[in-house]
């Protein structure tokens, strides 16, 4: 649905803008050019993307995730006090975070759903608890060790060093996470269960 809205909005805005600026012929030409660009870009990123997804799966199988989970135990209990009593919740939370770190979204989502179901409050089952909000904010902040998709994009455009942005990505991800968690902390104080 979002796609259809986006496409309609783009089509309408572009047409109106082209009529205003007199660039109708360029617009029509770029429509066709864009379509073929779509194919070339997708095919170009397919290779590096497959490679990096494979490497991440390998690391997962080698037990890297278990290592990281152990390190996360203490911080997890600070952020999510419920996980101290519920072992399954703790596992789901750290599993979700690790999978996101490794960039395997397909593995992260089921564990995330498990975690959030366990975080539900039995008294108010339809209201998001502070811990649930915190969890969702952590997931939307996207902390990834290796940003595979973006690097594949850069490599496809001929970049010699697609991973040289890694420090910047780490810094931005961490700042985004901190900002989100701070906002969630303030929200928890200000916006009580309604």
């Amino acid at each position, binding site marked *: 649905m979002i796609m259809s809205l986006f496409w309609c909005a*783009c*089509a309408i805005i572009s047409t109106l803008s082209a009529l205003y600026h007199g660039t109708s012929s360029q*617009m029509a030409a770029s429509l066709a050019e864009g379509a073929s*660009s779509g194919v070339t870009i997708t095919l170009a990123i*397919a290779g590096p993307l*497959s490679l990096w997804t494979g490497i991440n799966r390998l690391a997962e199988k080698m037990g890297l995730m278990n290592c990281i989970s152990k390190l996360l135990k203490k911080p997890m209990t600070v952020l999510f006090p419920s996980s101290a009593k519920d072992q399954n919740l703790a596992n789901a939370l750290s599993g979700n975070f690790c999978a996101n770190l490794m960039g395997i979204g397909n593995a992260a989502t089921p564990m995330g759903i498990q975690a959030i179901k366990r975080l539900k409050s039995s008294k108010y089952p339809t209201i998001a608890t502070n811990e649930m909000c915190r969890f969702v904010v952590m997931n939307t902040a996207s902390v990834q060790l290796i940003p595979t*998709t973006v690097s594949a994009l850069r490599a496809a455009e001929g970049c010699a060093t697609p991973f040289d942005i890694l420090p910047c*990505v780490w810094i*931005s991800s961490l700042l985004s*996470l901190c900002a989100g968690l701070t906002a969630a902390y303030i929200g928890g104080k200000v916006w009580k269960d309604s």
Partner: protein
Amino acid sequence: MRLSLRILPSMIILISSISMLRSSGAIEAAKHILDPFLSLLGIPSETILLMLIRPFSGSAALAAGAELIHEYGPDSLIGRTTAVMLGSTETTFYVISVYFGASGIKKTRYAIPAALVGDLAGFLAASWSVRVFM
């Protein structure tokens, strides 16, 4: 591989629509209006479409980013900023709808504003870190 083939149809239509927007002059116009404000924050105004679409759709954001990197080159300031923005943020509304939908939550309280604050911080941090470290 399967993932890449699955996103192919959406990528075709998304990159076409962004191409259309760019060549019709719509993005230039938006740039002129927002430039003074964005440059105060240190954000390259070419990334405005990416920032606006990022919380709503991952594929559209990928297409917008791909188009920007294609247009300005992967090693330019804009190319790098785009890449860092894409790599450090997530599709907010999609994540929220998946997790809150799966758990039957109707009142999301401050989750959405807080997540959007995180996204905004990510965009700002991306612009600054690329300027400072690259």
